[in-house]
């Protein structure tokens, strides 16, 4: 078990003929992901890496029985591309694209309200169930199948965290980068619940960042609903107070938003705080496998 993606996931790539789309299609195929089709309007009938290209998501889904999509469609067309995927009722939509207007994401979130559709991203590295399925742009080889669920707002910091876990011998059930934009398809809260119910997942690692209220919402949820051990690192402890305009940001946050405040609410919810970004793997290991101290790093 794992969450959201596994061996049975059948993926189409939106924007497959673009540079990033084609490159990562190759990488995902190498990892063993079932990439069953691609979509680029006007390029239907061609192939990329042996994968058939269709003009519309609808055509692609009809021909391939896909149940997930990963999108590299440029920001200005991403709204329409996402609507296409929603209309084709794909249950999992992963948006890698960076720079999508916030109001477009607001409209997309409203559009899927109440529907059994999960969006990951945008502006994210995607997700991976190690050894089974990669729907994203992360380097696959750093992952190992295992029992740690990982949720992160970052890209490369996530890779570093995964790398550290793998180094200390802790594999991962599923790793998800939820993205760095103001409005996201899925929040920590939505995904924590899936990990809590997933029998393979033994513990959850959260990698947060300053700003927004993702971590605060997560803390509330963990307190009420999560029994599994949760670990958290929040990047940006040393960041200066943002230069800003107006008061609305401060009012909404209501004193929330800094790394210290996020650490405090997470700690109060019973989460184990990871003090340094260099100690992610070792902190988790020390708590979960106290009998197996981490090998000291090579100097």
């Amino acid at each position, binding site marked *: 078990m794992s969450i959201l993606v596994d061996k049975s996931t059948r993926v189409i790539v939106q924007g497959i003929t673009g540079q990033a789309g084609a*490159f990562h299609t190759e*990488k995902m195929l190498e990892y063993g992901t079932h990439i069953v089709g691609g979509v680029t309007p006007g390029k239907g009938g061609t192939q990329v890496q042996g994968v058939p290209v269709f003009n519309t998501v609808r055509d692609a889904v009809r021909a391939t029985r896909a149940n997930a999509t990963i999108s590299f469609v440029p*920001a*200005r067309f991403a709204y329409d591309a996402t609507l296409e995927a929603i209309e084709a009722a794909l249950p999992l939509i992963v948006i890698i694209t960076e*720079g999508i*207007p*916030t*109001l*477009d*994401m*607001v*409209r997309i*979130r*409203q559009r899927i309200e109440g529907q059994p559709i999960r969006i990951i991203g945008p502006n994210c590295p995607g997700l991976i169930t190690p050894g089974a399925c990669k729907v994203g*742009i*992360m*380097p696959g*080889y750093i992952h190992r199948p295992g029992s740690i669920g990982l949720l992160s*707002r*970052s*890209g*490369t*910091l*996530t*890779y*570093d965290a995964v*790398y550290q876990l793998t180094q200390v011998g802790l594999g991962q059930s599923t790793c998800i980068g939820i993205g*760095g934009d*103001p*409005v996201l398809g899925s*929040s920590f809260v939505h995904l924590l619940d899936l990990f809590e119910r997933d029998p393979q997942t033994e513990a959850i690692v959260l990698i947060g*960042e*300053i700003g*927004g*209220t*993702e971590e605060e919402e997560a803390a509330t949820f963990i307190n009420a609903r999560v029994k599994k051990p949760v670990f958290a*690192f929040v*990047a*940006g*402890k*040393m*960041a*200066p107070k943002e*230069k*800003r*305009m*107006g*008061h*609305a*940001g401060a*009012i*909404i946050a209501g*004193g929330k938003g800094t*790394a210290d405040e996020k650490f405090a609410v997470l700690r109060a919810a019973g989460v184990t705080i990871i*003090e*340094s*970004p*260099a100690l992610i793997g070792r902190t988790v290991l020390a708590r979960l496998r106290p009998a197996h101290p981490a090998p000291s*790093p090579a*100097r």
Partner: protein
Amino acid sequence: MKLHEYQAKQLFDRVGIPVPFGVVARTPEEAGRCYETVRKQRLGGEGFVCNVKAQLHAGGRGKVGGVVAVRSAADAATAAAGLLGRRLVTKQTGAEGLPVSAVLVDERSTLARELYLALTIDRFHAQPMILASARGGMDIEDVAATAPSAIVRTPIEIAIGVSDAACAEIARQFQLTGEHPAICARVIRAMWEVFQAHDASLIEINPLGITTDNRLLAVDAKVTLDDNALFRHPELAALRDESQEHPLELKASQIGISYVGLDGNIGCLVNGAGLAMATNDIIKLSGGNPANFLDVGGGANVEQVTNAFAIILADTRVKAVLVNIFGGIMRCDWIAEGLLKATQQLEVKVPIVVRLQGTNVEEGRRLLTTAQRLNLISVNELADAARKAVELATA
């Protein structure tokens, strides 16, 4: 992208949000003439009171002399001379402050009440929302901190817009009477119109004033636009005032590098925003001070690494540089080659500590070691690399 008050008020005026009559000036002489224009427009006599308001991309100017009341054209010119060309430091600008290159001269009204009205996005619920408080004015953040229930949040259904019920509730909360509930409703709807039409991320009216002669006016205006949506509003690009942006930050953003100047002496070059923040954190944890936040972006090629070094070293306080790269798709050996070329090209003198991790890391480290550059030190572990950088910066 932030707009100046005068630009925001021009947008407001177009959609019928009542604003005080005002004119923007860029020289003291112009400010004097603007005073006369405003006085005549408002049929004011001798001693008519105007504000000369510094235009800058931050709040808090009222508390630091950025708004001056004047009673003659000569006063207006003097006030403008005192503001133009200066850097104004407010609690929202950071220590360097922001330059003032324009002032808004407008009618000063005596306010009986100050209300607060804003529109922004509730990120977590993915909904636009109205923020309203009867306790507007300069201390709104204190109100938020001490009496959060005095600020009422009303979500907007994006498909429906602002409902009559929401407007009525806000008018009730504002304790408006007479014509004012209807005017207030028009203001809220117009704000929403501006928000959608221009892809704003924030519209704030603070204060929304009720004058002693019973007019409802947007006395101050703040508008921030969503940078991601600027591609569909080419007409708004002309409103950008680059003088309000940190010169290095601006230069960096133009070449796809995200840079924020800090006040330490250890330059940082990192790929990815989260990792860049974490790198700053670990430098502090190791007892040092980062000189900057820098995210070189996804494609850390030779050109981009060279550009990033040029930006970091433009800050002469930098005594050492910490490079922290996690090679994913971008392989560590390519990054190492880029680093070697870039530092040679720029003749970098300060020590550079490099921590590489990820794809082809062995080859990357081998390249760095065999190049035998005295000031290029490869360290495998992040914590050790940070300690080394701190040690070199303080040596």
